[in-house]
């Protein structure tokens, strides 16, 4: 993948966990609230990833809550970073309150992540509506934790069902994958796991965001061992 400078800003103040997932927990000195309140410069709060030198994390504060940062603080912060960074990814907390407003305020592009469940899709619909109301739309959709076997049996909403309701552009379908849990427990992004379908899906999303045409991968149920092998071979070849 092309090297792009990326900063991930954790918008979930008070419930920080991106540092855990990236395995950067022990390196945090300053966080986003320190930057906003002027205790440090933005550079000081940016933690360089140990695997990818072009990836930085600005951690959320764990001891404060969402009201510590305002939407205008977020805009100011992102304006400061905009010239240096190719991408700034802001992880919005769940809900439609302050944390969501903070994450939305500086955004140029909104990616809505939802599970193919009726309640999740309902919430995603609301979020998409709020994004539209803020004139940040149209949002793009990432469908997460899709279980092909359940979908096939008709026990889970299919990608088509969700798209029919939400009527926005689909940018990625991430299959349900155990390796996500394994990877996050190890503090290792799932995108580094070689044979993870979810990891592959995230790679594809990144490529699509960069403007590449990537076909949606086949996430059909593959219960047979031969099928599984074939899939693995295919990924290796990628």
């Amino acid at each position, binding site marked *: 993948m092309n090297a792009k400078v990326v900063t991930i800003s954790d918008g979930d103040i008070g419930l920080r966990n991106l540092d855990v997932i990236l395995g950067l927990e022990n390196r945090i000195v300053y966080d986003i609230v320190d930057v906003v309140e002027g205790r440090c410069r933005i550079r000081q709060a940016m933690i360089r990833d140990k695997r990818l030198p072009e990836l930085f994390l600005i951690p959320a504060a764990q001891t404060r809550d969402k009201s510590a940062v305002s939407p205008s603080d977020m805009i100011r912060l992102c304006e400061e970073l905009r010239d240096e960074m190719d991408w700034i990814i802001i992880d919005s907390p769940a809900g439609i309150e302050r944390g969501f407003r903070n994450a939305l305020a500086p955004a140029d592009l909104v990616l809505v992540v939802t599970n193919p469940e009726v309640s999740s899709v*309902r*919430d995603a*619909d*609301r979020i998409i*509506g*709020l994004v*539209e*109301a803020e004139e940040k739309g149209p949002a793009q959709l990432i469908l997460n934790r899709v279980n092909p076997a359940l979908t096939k049996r008709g026990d889970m909403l299919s990608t088509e069902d969700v798209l*029919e*309701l939400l009527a926005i552009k689909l940018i990625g379908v991430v299959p349900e994958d155990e390796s996500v849990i394994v990877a996050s427990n190890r503090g290792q992004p799932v995108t580094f796991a070689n044979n993870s379908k979810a990891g592959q899906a995230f790679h594809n999303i990144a490529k699509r965001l960069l403007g590449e045409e990537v076909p949606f991968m086949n996430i059909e149920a593959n219960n047979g061992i031969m099928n599984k092998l074939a899939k693995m071979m295919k990924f290796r070849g990628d």
Partner: protein
Amino acid sequence: MKPNLGIKQLKQPETILIKGIREGLLITLGEGDWLSIFASLMEKITEKEKFFEGAKLALDVGNRILHAADLGTLRDRLADKNIILWAILSNSPVTELTAQDLGLATRISVPKPERIIKSIESSIPGEDAIFLRKTVRSGFKVVSNGHIIIFGDVNPGGEIIAGGSVIIWGRCQGVVQAGVDGDQNATVCALDLNPTQLRIAGIIAISPKRKGKPQPEVAKIIAGQVVAETWNPKSR
């Protein structure tokens, strides 16, 4: 005589309104004590004796309650001036009855409105409606006293509240209320009518689970119940 009474008397002549109607003259008496207004009326008539002579008079006495004696005196005095009192108009049923007893009319025929020759109007006046070209998503609400037209879907969790009818050119899966002010003629139409809940003029309906392909449907009140019918170009 008290001074304020003097002012009153000065004002009273203004409260006598004389108007020519097809049947003769119509005099409308304003507020005030009957005897004094009667006096000022007679005064006025005496002033313009020539004008009133031979006139057919209808008198609007407002809310006053007049008895046979009052009306009799009035008629006699007018007759002295060669004026024919033929009608007494009153809001008081007592006065009306008294007048009828004296053989006076209590209604003057309503003057016929001038015949208006209407040019044939080729544009039809419409009704108030709002038009929305977007998807109504969960948590959003569209409210209007008039009709509502949505060019898009209404998703579950979305709400449409209209004083009139609702037309959805798209899929309807939210809550729709039409005729919230009690308009029983309100209808709800959608290309795919599958609302969480539908209310027309307060009557609640929950749409049954539909199988098969969606079809355009129209929901309306028939015999006190909300009924959804498939749109059929032949029977409309």
